[in-house]
């Protein structure tokens, strides 16, 4: 990465390393603690004082959580909702992203501004009227209703990310394909799409994580068909410590793993590539 400003003498390289390291520990230690808790047996979780080093490795707590009533069903619901959301937001959003990347047209700036400004509106306000409407439309308490709201949340980001993905795919290649006899659609499916695929996959993973993590809308819109965060949230006050810790860990892990694969694209979200 590019160096911005040589540091002053009084803040030496060593001090900067130390600061960078301390901030890294500040982020990693809580993840370490919840991981340790999730792999500790129940009696260790209830013990006092706790050791800050792993004492014994056990799957007891995680299995207790997964076998608790409603958990596996909620995991399944979460996966379905997240997959529906990513499919819907790609189908609806990617064409718009492509249009923003490839065409100069009247109203483009207005459209872009509109998309950006949706971020200024709190998501809390969407869920309540939609819950009322979904009851009327017989969609209340279904995975579809949650996916519809999650798509509304994810769509602006999907449009902006896919547009930056298509900007990264050279327009000349598509034009060359058309010169060589492809029509507009073939040039897109045979040239632009394969090149854009990794970026589109990254955008899909962002959407998946967003949906997997979302609590408020999922809790408002469901009653029995809860997603995992909604189920965990509703059960939280009444549940024992091992259930909470294993649940927190279980939401955390897939998100971190997925994020690892898309880390290169993180900075695309804000219009600039890291490298």
């Amino acid at each position, binding site marked *: 990465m590019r160096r911005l400003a040589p540091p002053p003498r009084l803040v030496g390289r060593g001090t*900067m390393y130390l600061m960078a390291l301390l901030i890294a520990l500040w982020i990693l230690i809580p993840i370490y603690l919840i991981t340790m808790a999730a792999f500790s047996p129940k009696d260790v979780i209830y013990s006092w004082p706790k050791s800050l080093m792993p004492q014994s490795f056990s799957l007891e707590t995680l299995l207790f959580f997964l076998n608790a009533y409603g958990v596996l069903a909620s995991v399944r619901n979460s996966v379905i909702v997240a997959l529906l959301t990513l499919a819907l937001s790609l189908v609806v959003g990617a064409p718009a992203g492509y249009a923003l990347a490839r065409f100069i047209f009247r109203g483009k700036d207005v459209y872009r501004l509109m998309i950006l400004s949706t971020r200024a509106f709190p998501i809390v306000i*969407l869920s*309540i*009227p939609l819950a009322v409407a979904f009851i009327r439309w017989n969609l209340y308490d279904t995975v579809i209703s949650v996916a519809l709201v999650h798509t*509304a949340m994810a*769509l602006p980001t999907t449009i902006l990310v896919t547009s930056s993905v298509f900007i990264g795919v050279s327009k000349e290649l598509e034009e060359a394909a058309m010169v060589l006899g492809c029509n507009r659609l073939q040039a897109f499916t045979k040239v632009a799409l394969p090149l854009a695929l990794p970026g589109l996959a990254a955008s899909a993973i962002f959407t998946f994580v967003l949906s997997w993590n979302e609590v408020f809308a999922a809790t408002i819109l469901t009653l029995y068909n809860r997603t995992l965060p909604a189920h965990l949230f509703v059960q*939280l006050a009444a549940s024992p410590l091992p259930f909470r810790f294993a649940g*927190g860990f279980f*939401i955390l892990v897939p998100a971190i793993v997925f994020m690892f694969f898309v880390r290169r694209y993180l900075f695309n979200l804000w219009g600039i590539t890291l490298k």
Partner: protein
Amino acid sequence: MKSMAIGLKQVRLRRLNLEPYILLLPSMVYLALFFAWPMFQAFRLAFQTDDGHLTLSYLQRMFGDAAFIKALRTTIVLVVSIVPIQFILALTMAILVSERLRGADLFVYIYSIPLAVSDLAAGIIWFSIFTERGYLNSLLYNLGLIQKPFLFLDYRTPWPIVGIVLAEVWRATSIVFVILVAGLQSIPRDYIEAAEIFGANWFQRVWKVILPLLRPSIQTALILRTILAVQVFAVVVAVAGRGVTVLAAEAYRWYSEYRSPHMAAAYAMFILVISLASAFIYLRTLRVREEMRL
């Protein structure tokens, strides 16, 4: 002259291409249905009774509610403590990774991990630290500082708020960091070198060159974070339980427990008003002049 003008007009007509509009259409329809329409419906729910009369009674009831003042106060305390801490921490992180330390890429990855962490998971993690037999009490005991567990999450003390602030700073500083790093990358190196040649020291370069040029990114980051902090919800409940309430938690409670979509919508409207007002204030005070946009 005249024929040339007609010629230009024809060119423009020929170029009026419907393709982009067709590609945009699905997204516009979707956002109209699932974004604009619910906004409008929320407005109706908050200001209209079930039989269609306009009313301010829901708002009056909300303002008169004892929980409203508490929720508003806590929300404001959280926003004004979380956002500045996040901004300073994220700026430090962004400058550190821009310093070409060995392993900077690893630091960038570690610093962006919390982006993927759900607010509920973050709340549970910090609950495990602050709870009675939690990791913080264990650490203090092992260091010999306390004899028996200290009740951090007692809602009569300010400690639950501290826990929520730490959880939010831990979880959501990454997004500010990513926005600022992206902004830093777009500052032309010449500007900084020029400042250096003219004798600006490190602090002057950061304060007088980098920060002003970073203003658009700072604006984006602050608006986004403030809006998200105003609707903070799952973290609060996961860390502090029922003892501490915020505006979004009241909206949830009115909808799910007291079965009043009208009151819930009134709270949602109030959150919307605060969000838009804070975005407006940032846009005015951190106005980005056109020549500063890079």
